[in-house]
């Protein structure tokens, strides 16, 4: 009788089975074979896309769409002037000008800039603005050389501002600082513009003898004869009252032959325009006073702009898409705990960190693809719907559109990884899902809610430090520091730069993942 040693059957461990991608493949199989999870990811895509039908239903302002059936009743929007660069601009101010031909110089001394907001009729509380005297931070008056008096024409200007010192601005989007501090009779500001062909150079001075170069504007298409002169613009915030800025000019020096000032309300004035009454030009002994409403600059969400809609409206469904994705991502690990599958998984892949990493890769990829498809569809479907109500608030380049779509995909992917990490930490479905949804949505609701603007002001802390800071990747309208616009959530502006917001969300996910990794290795499964 012979005895045979019993050799246990054991599959040799091949290198492939040790590999990380093998583990990823196993997790992918787990994911795709649960029908409910796949359906939930499809719901994510549908929720993002379908929301455009709600978010693009614009029925206020000049872009009114009174339902698809009676679109003909929509009020026509005022034509949006565009600047030399093709960007939408606001170009509304009071201009005391005279035609000048060829090269030359204009110099003034400014001794005063005051602002006045008309007092609201009794009982009317201005929306966010203060009634009564008040200079806005970007109220401005100064000297300007402009191609002609029509809106959107090329220009370069030197100006004093309410609280931003002396500035040189040209062609609507460019802004360079000069002397700081407010202008007054005791600290006057001297401003000078020198035209040399297609180049205009700005100087400022505190005493009229020592001049400092502030900036050089290249305006290559400037015609030989242009309008040079004095201007004022109140640059109001979003209150519908407007601010009247009044500048006092002395020692006006023109190197060109003087022909006398003509006062023009650039952009018009009257009850149907953004400017209630025309500005004024008063020429006294030794001093000239110019007063005007309006603003000169890019038309990005200001009251003088065309009121267009921002393209990021089409991606407003991201929030509804997040919820099913978060549920699935948390369950991707909590279901293993509930069923005891985690023991099998950890027996098959004893290196626990790698298991978590593999799950993160799979659920992150699922979130990314869902976000990519959903956002691309939403943009494709939503853009024509949005354009029914008029032109976009700001033209969006293909690169920006790509950033919005890819950024949204990344936002969903990182949120899914965050949910997976929280699920690993708490190991139970309902608390994990509730924690992630609350962490993401409660700060957002508070940012919009009845306490909005308290303490934080425009762009509160809520969307700077919480995961949804990542929504800034959807920002379609650039922010210009030289505009008085309420850069608030309600107007579609997020407080952080696009990728900075996404980095905040990544930091949350990374911290949660680190804690999950630590706990998964340390605890019994």
């Amino acid at each position, binding site marked *: 009788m012979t005895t045979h040693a019993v050799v246990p059957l054991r599959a040799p461990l091949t290198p492939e089975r040790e590999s990380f991608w093998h583990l990823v493949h196993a997790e992918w199989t787990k994911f795709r074979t649960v029908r409910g999870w796949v359906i939930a990811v499809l719901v994510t895509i549908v929720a993002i896309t379908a929301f455009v039908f709600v978010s693009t*239903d614009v*029925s*206020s302002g000049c872009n009114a769409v009174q339902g698809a059936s009676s679109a003909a009743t929509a009020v026509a929007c005022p034509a949006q002037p565009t600047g030399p660069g093709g960007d939408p601009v606001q170009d509304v101010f009071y201009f005391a000008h005279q035609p000048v031909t060829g090269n030359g110089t204009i110099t003034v001394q400014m001794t005063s800039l005051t602002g006045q907001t008309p007092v609201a009729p009794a009982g009317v509380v201005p929306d966010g603005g203060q009634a009564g005297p008040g200079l806005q931070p970007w109220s401005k008056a100064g000297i300007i050389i402009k191609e002609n008096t029509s809106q959107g024409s090329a220009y370069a200007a030197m100006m004093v501002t309410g609280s931003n010192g002396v500035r040189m601005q040209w062609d609507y989007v460019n802004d360079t600082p000069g002397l700081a501090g407010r202008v007054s009779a005791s600290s006057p500001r001297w401003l000078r513009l020198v035209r040399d062909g297609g180049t205009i150079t700005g100087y400022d001075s505190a005493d009229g003898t020592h001049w400092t170069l502030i900036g050089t504007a290249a305006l290559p298409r400037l015609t030989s004869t242009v309008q040079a002169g004095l201007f004022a613009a109140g640059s109001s915030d979003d209150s519908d009252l407007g601010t009247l800025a009044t500048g006092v000019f002395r020692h006006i020096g023109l190197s060109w032959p003087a022909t006398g000032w003509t006062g023009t309300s650039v952009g018009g004035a009257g009850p149907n325009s953004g400017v209630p009454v025309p500005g004024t030009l008063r020429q006294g002994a030794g001093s000239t006073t110019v007063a005007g409403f309006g603003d000169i600059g890019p038309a990005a969400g200001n009251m003088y702009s065309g009121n267009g809609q921002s393209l990021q409206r089409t991606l407003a469904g991201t929030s509804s898409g997040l919820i099913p994705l978060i549920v699935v991502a948390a369950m991707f690990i909590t279901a293993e705990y509930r069923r005891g599958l985690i023991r099998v998984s950890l027996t098959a892949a004893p290196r626990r960190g790698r298991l978590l990493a593999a799950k993160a890769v799979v659920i992150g990829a699922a979130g990314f693809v869902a976000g990519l498809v959903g956002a691309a569809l939403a943009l494709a479907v939503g853009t024509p719907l949005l354009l029914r109500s008029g032109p976009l608030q700001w033209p969006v380049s293909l690169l920006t559109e790509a950033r919005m779509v890819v950024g949204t995909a990344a936002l969903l992917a990182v949120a899914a990884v965050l949910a997976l990490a929280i699920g690993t930490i708490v190991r*139970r479905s*309902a608390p994990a*899902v*509730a924690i992630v949804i609350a962490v993401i949505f409660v700060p*957002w609701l508070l940012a919009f809610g009845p306490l909005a603007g*308290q303490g934080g002001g425009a762009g509160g802390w809520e969307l700077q430090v919480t995961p949804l800071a990542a929504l800034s990747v959807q920002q379609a309208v650039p922010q210009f520091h030289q505009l008085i616009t309420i850069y608030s959530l309600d107007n579609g502006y997020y407080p952080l730069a696009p990728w900075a917001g996404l980095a905040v969300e990544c930091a949350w996910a990374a911290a949660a993942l680190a804690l999950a990794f630590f706990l998964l290795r340390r605890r019994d499964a």
Partner: protein
Amino acid sequence: MSLTARVAPPRYLLGQALHAEWTKFRTVAGPAWLLAGVVTLTLAAGTAAASTARCQSAACGLDPATVSFTGIYPAQAVAAVAGVLAIGNEYSTGMIKVSLTAMPRRLTWFLAKATVLIAQVLTASALAVAGAALAGRLILPGHGFTSAHGYASLTSVTDLRAAVGAVLYLTLIALLSLGLVAAVRDSAAAIGLVLGVLYLFPLAADVVSNPALGRHLDQIGPLPAGLDAQATIKVKGLPLTPWQGLGVVALWTAGALLLGALALKSRDA
């Protein structure tokens, strides 16, 4: 001799079901932690909001009750989890089979669950809201919420209504969750649904640019409707009156409970 004759036939009374559910509640640590979470979050967030809120003028437009009850935003998520887990845990552990064997009258069992949940959440949220209101009463007058700015008293009938509204709101949300989890039988899906319904309506209302549609969303969403029940100033301008707001939340809850009861009655467990 028959053995069966000596055993009294079971009668499946509601009282027995209540006693059983109450025993389950008090012998498991989870629900107590959740209730503590409701109290802590309501108090902490409310105190933090009251400490940072400033009313500079009569036109500041801040509602002291809304400030004090800021904690309701996160606390309702915890109340929802309590509602979801009351039945969700039975499904996830398989306990539901034992429960329904012991109490075959499913609707009686469901009613007992709901009653015990009401008792828990009502108590916890009453404590939480009372504490938050007290904190607001102590802190807010020092932050500009004075009679000079139009806040005559922070203990009027209106403020009492706001507090009652907040307590009832939290309780109704827990019940809404109970109904939904009975309908879908899965904790994660149920909590996702509840929080989606709660949080997405106000966000959608803020995003839509059509003011009429936004107002409708604020009227039908349970969270904004529940907030209307907690308002003490500018009540006239709200999309709903306070009691209408609470009524909308109650309708959502009734709908969810009905759905849950029907599913429970007609389906295998």
